[in-house]
C-alpha cells in the first residue's frame, strides 16, 4: 500500500506544482498584459484613486485632484471649467474622458513608461502614487479674450505662436463645465452627460480641432494663392479675366463674386486684388488652370487630410482626395464644395506663412512635471512641414497685410501694429446660415501670434453676417491680448 501511496503523493505534488506554476504565470509573467486589458476595471478604478496630476496654465491649476471622503480618495475639480473645457476635456469615473484628460492620461495618472521608476520608488518608500503635472502653453489672457469675444456664438478660436507651434488659446463654444462630469455618482455623471449630449448647441464638440467641420470659404484662398505663387507660374500681378458671372465648365451652375458683380472695374483683375477683395471668380479660373492636384498638394503640406496630435488627435481637415473635374476644382479653389477645415488647420496655415514658410507642430504641452517638479518632458519645437519658401511667405504676408489695411478684412486693424489677415464667409447650402472665418497674424514683420476664428450658424445673422463683421473683431481681441502683454 505504501508504494501506491508514494505514487499518489507524487501526483499530489504535481497537482500543487501546477498551481504554483499557474499562479506564477498569472501574477508575474502575464500580469502586465492582464493589467492592460481594456476590460480590466481594476486598472481603471486604480487610476481614479491615485492622485492625478494637475493641469496648469501659467502655474495656476485649471484641473486638479483634491482629497475626497469616498472610496475614490480624490475628486477632480476644474477651477474655470467652461473657459478651458476645450482644452482639459472631462474626466469621469469609468465612463470615459476627453481632451487632455484623455490624451495625457498616462502622464496624469503616473502610469507612463517614463514614470515607472518613480512608481517603484514610491512603492518602496510607502508614498501614495501620484501622477505627473502638465504645464500648458496656453496664454490665459488670450484664452479669456477668445472666450469673451466669442460670447454666445457657436464657434471656436485657436491661437498659435508661429515660431514654436505653442497653442496660446483654444476655445470652443458652446462650452460646458467638466465639473458636472467629474462627480463620483455614476447616475449623476450619466444624467449630466446625457443632457450635454442632447443639448442642440452640442457643447461636447470641440470645434477648435474636431466636431462637424465647416467649409473654410475664402480663408482657403490663402492655400490656393500659396500654391500659385510657389508654382513659380504666377505672381501677385498675374491677371485673370474679370466677368461678373462665371459658368462652371460642363454645368449650368453659375459662380458669382460676393459683391454680385465684377471684381473691380477693369477688364482683368490681378491675383493681388482678387485676394484683397476676396473675389471668387478669379480664384475659380486660377484653380481650373492649376488643377486640383496642385491645390491638394499644397493643402496636404499645410496639414489637410491628416490628424495632428496636440496631443488630442484633431479631426483631419479635408481637401477631396478623388480626382476632381474642372467644375468641382473651381469651387474648391475658394474653399467650398467638399473642402472642410478646423480652426486649428486654418491657424496652422497662417502660422506657416508667419514663420517664413515653416509650419511648426502645434502643441498644448509646455512641460510634463514629475511630482517632485523634475521635468519629464519639455517643449521641443519641431517643424511639421515646409509647404512654401520664404519668398512666397513674404509675398503672402504682404498680400494679407494689404487685405487688412486696404481690403475686406478691415475690422482686424490694430492701431500701431501691422496685422496680416484673411476673412472667409462660407456657404453651407441654400438658405443655411454662413460659417464666418478670420485668420491672420501679428505683428506682420515679427509675428508673435497667429489666430483662426470660426463663427458658426452665421453668428445668429443667417446669411447677412460676414467674416469681417463677426469673426475679425474676435480675432483682433485675441491678437491684442497676446501683444499687450
Amino acid at each position, binding site marked *: *500500500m*505504501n*508504494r*501506491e*501511496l*508514494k505514487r*499518489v*503523493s507524487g501526483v*499530489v*505534488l504535481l*497537482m*500543487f506544482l*501546477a*498551481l*504554483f506554476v*499557474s*499562479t*506564477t504565470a*498569472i*501574477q*508575474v509573467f*502575464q*500580469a*502586465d498584459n*492582464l*493589467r492592460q*486589458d481594456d*476590460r*480590466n*476595471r*481594476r*486598472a481603471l*478604478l*486604480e487610476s481614479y484613486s491615485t492622485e492625478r496630476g494637475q493641469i496648469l496654465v501659467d502655474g495656476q491649476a485649471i484641473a486638479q485632484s483634491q482629497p475626497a471622503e469616498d472610496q475614490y480618495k480624490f475628486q477632480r475639480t476644474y477651477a474655470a471649467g467652461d473657459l478651458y473645457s476645450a482644452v482639459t476635456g472631462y474626466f469621469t469615473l469609468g465612463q470615459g474622458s476627453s481632451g487632455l484628460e484623455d490624451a495625457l492620461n498616462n502622464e496624469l495618472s503616473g502610469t507612463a513608461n517614463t514614470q515607472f521608476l518613480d512608481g517603484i520608488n514610491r512603492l518602496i518608500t510607502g508614498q501614495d502614487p501620484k501622477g505627473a503635472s502638465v504645464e500648458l502653453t496656453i496664454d490665459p489672457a488670450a484664452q479669456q479674450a477668445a472666450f469673451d469675444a466669442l460670447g454666445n456664438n457657436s464657434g471656436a478660436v485657436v491661437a498659435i505662436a508661429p515660431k514654436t507651434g505653442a497653442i496660446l488659446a483654444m476655445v470652443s463654444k458652446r462650452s460646458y463645465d467638466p465639473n458636472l462630469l467629474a462627480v463620483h455618482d455614476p447616475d449623476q455623471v450619466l444624467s449630466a452627460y446625457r443632457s450635454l449630449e442632447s443639448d442642440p448647441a452640442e457643447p461636447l464638440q470641440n470645434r477648435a480641432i474636431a466636431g462637424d467641420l465647416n467649409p473654410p470659404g475664402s480663408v482657403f484662398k490663402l492655400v490656393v494663392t500659396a500654391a500659385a505663387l510657389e508654382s513659380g507660374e504666377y505672381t501677385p500681378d498675374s491677371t485673370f479675366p474679370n466677368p461678373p458671372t462665371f459658368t462652371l465648365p460642363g454645368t449650368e451652375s453659375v459662380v458669382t463674386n460676393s459683391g454680385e458683380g465684377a471684381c473691380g472695374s477693369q477688364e482683368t483683375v490681378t491675383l493681388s486684388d482678387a485676394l484683397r477683395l476676396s473675389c471668387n471668380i478669379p480664384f475659380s479660373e486660377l484653380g481650373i488652370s492649376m488643377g486640383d492636384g496642385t491645390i491638394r498638394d499644397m493643402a496636404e503640406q499645410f496639414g489637410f487630410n491628416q490628424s495632428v496630435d496636440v496631443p488630442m488627435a484633431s479631426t483631419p481637415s479635408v481637401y477631396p482626395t478623388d480626382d476632381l473635374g474642372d467644375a468641382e476644382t473651381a469651387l474648391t479653389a475658394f474653399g467650398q464644395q467638399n473642402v472642410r477645415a478646423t480652426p486649428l488647420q486654418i491657424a496652422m496655415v497662417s502660422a506657416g506663412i508667419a514663420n517664413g514658410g515653416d509650419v511648426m507642430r502645434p502643441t498644448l504641452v509646455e512641460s510634463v512635471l514629475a511630482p517632485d517638479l523634475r521635468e519629464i518632458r519639455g517643449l521641443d519645437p519641431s517643424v511639421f512641414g515646409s509647404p512654401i519658401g520664404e519668398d512666397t511667405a513674404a509675398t503672402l504676408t504682404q498680400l494679407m497685410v494689404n487685405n487688412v489695411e486696404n481690403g475686406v478684412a478691415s475690422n482686424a486693424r490694430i492701431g500701431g501694429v501691422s496685422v496680416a489677415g484673411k476673412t472667409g464667409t462660407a456657404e453651407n447650402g441654400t438658405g443655411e446660415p454662413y460659417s464666418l472665418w478670420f485668420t491672420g497674424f501679428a505683428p506682420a514683420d515679427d509675428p508673435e501670434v497667429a489666430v483662426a476664428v470660426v463663427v458658426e450658424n452665421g453668428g445668429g445673422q443667417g446669411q447677412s453676417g460676414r467674416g469681417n463683421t463677426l469673426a475679425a473683431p474676435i480675432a483682433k481681441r485675441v491678437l491684442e491680448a497676446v501683444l499687450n502683454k
Partner: protein
Amino acid sequence: MSEAVTEMISRDQQRPVDKAASVNVPRRLRNLELVLVLFASAINGGALYLVQLGAIGAFDSSFFLPAMGLAVLVLGMHVALRFIAPHADPFILPIATLLNGLGIAGIYRLDLAYGVAGWESVAVRQVVWTGLAIAVAITVLVMLRNHRVLQRYRYSAMFVGLLLLLLPMLPLIGREINGARVWIGIGSFSFQPGEIAKIALAVFFAGYLVTARDSLSMVGAKFLGMRFPRVRDLGPILVIWAAAMAVLVFQRDLGTSLLYFGLFVVMIYVATGRLSWVLLGLLLFVGGAMAAAQLGYVGGRLNAWLTPFDQSVYDAQGGSYQLVTGLFGLAHGGLIGTGLGQGMPNVTPLANSDFIIASLGEELGLAGVFAILALYLLFVSRGFRIGFAGQDDFGKLLSIGLSFVVALQVFIVIGGVTRVIPLTGLTTPFMAAGGSSLLANWIIAAVLLRLSDTVRNQPRVVVQ
C-alpha cells in the same frame, strides 16, 4: 518494498531504544502545537487588523474581538487534545486555524467593500460557523476514541453519504444557487450536504475496500500491456461512476462529481495497487463528462477555460467574465500584492467563496498565494504521513482518502480559478465562505488528529 518504507520501518524499530524519552514526547508535541497555534492566531489577528487599517483606516473592535474569540476555541481544542489525543500530529490544528483565519480576514475585507454588517455580514456568519465547526471537531475527538469503530459503520456511511448527495434533488428542500442544485434549505438557512457526504463516502470507501480489495485485485484480461480487472468486479466502480454522473447531470455540479469520483479512484488504486483501475476510471469519467458536455453548461465551461479572453465568450451568459475578472485581480496583486484592504477584490463576483483565493491573491500577492498553497500541501502531507505510518489498512486508507480529498478539492478550485482546468464550483477548504464546508473540513481535521494519535500511540509490533 521501497527504500523509503524500509527506512521508515527500521526507524520505527529503533524507537524502543529511546523509550525513556518517549514519556515526554506527547508533551513536546503539544507544546509545539501550542506555540504554532498562538503564532497562527497572531497572524490571523494581524491580518484582520491590516484589513481594517487598509479598508477603513481605523481599528474597529466590534468585529475584531469576536473573531479573535475563535482563538480561545482553538486553544480549547488544543487543551482537549492534551487529554484525549496527546500523540496527535502537532501541525494539523495550527494549519487549519491559520487557513480558517485568513479566510475570515478575506471574507471580512469583502464585507467592508460591500458595506454589509451585522447578520448581513458573511464574515460574522463565518465566525459563528467556525465556532460551531470547532465545537463539532472537539466533539468528534471526544466521541471517536478509536477510529476502527468507523469500519463497522461502513454501510451506514454509504447510506448516509448517498442520502446527503441526493438530498438536493428532492423537491421542497432542494435549492438551486448559481445554477448548481447542491443545496438544501429550510427558511433562510441553507446547507450544502455534499460537503459532509465526502467524509461519509471516504469512510465507506475505506471500509469497503479493506474487505473487497482481494477480489478487486484479481486480474482478468491483459490489454495494452496492463492486466485489467475481471468484468464481474466492475460493479462498484460503475455504481460510483453512475452516482458521479447523476451529480453532474442532475445537480449540474462538475466539481463535486469530479471530487467524489477522483476520491474513489485514488482509494481503489491505493487499496489494490492496480493502475488499471485508474485508467478505467479516467476513461469512464472523461467519456461521461464529454457526453455531458453536450449539456450546455459543461460546454460553456470548456469554452470559458480555453478562450476566456474572446469577447463573445466573455460576454456570454455563464461565460468567462468571472474567471477573467479573477485573473485581473490576481494580476493586480502581482508579486507582493496590494496589501490587505487595499485591493479591489469586490470587483469579482463570488469573491468570498469560489474566488477567495483570487481575492487573497490580489491583496497578498504571489507571495501570499504560495504561502497558502504551502499550508495546504503541508496539511495534505501530514495526512499522507499518517497513511504511511498507519498500522491498520482501514486507518491508512481513511487518512489517505481524507487528505487526498482536501488536496483534490484545492486543486479543482484553485486550478479552476487559475485556468489549469475548467472552472467548476467548489469551496476552498477552510477558507471559502460557507458553513457546510467549514464543518466538513474541521471534521476531517478532527479525524486526522485522531488517526495520527492512534498511529503514534500504539506499539509498533503490529504486522505491517
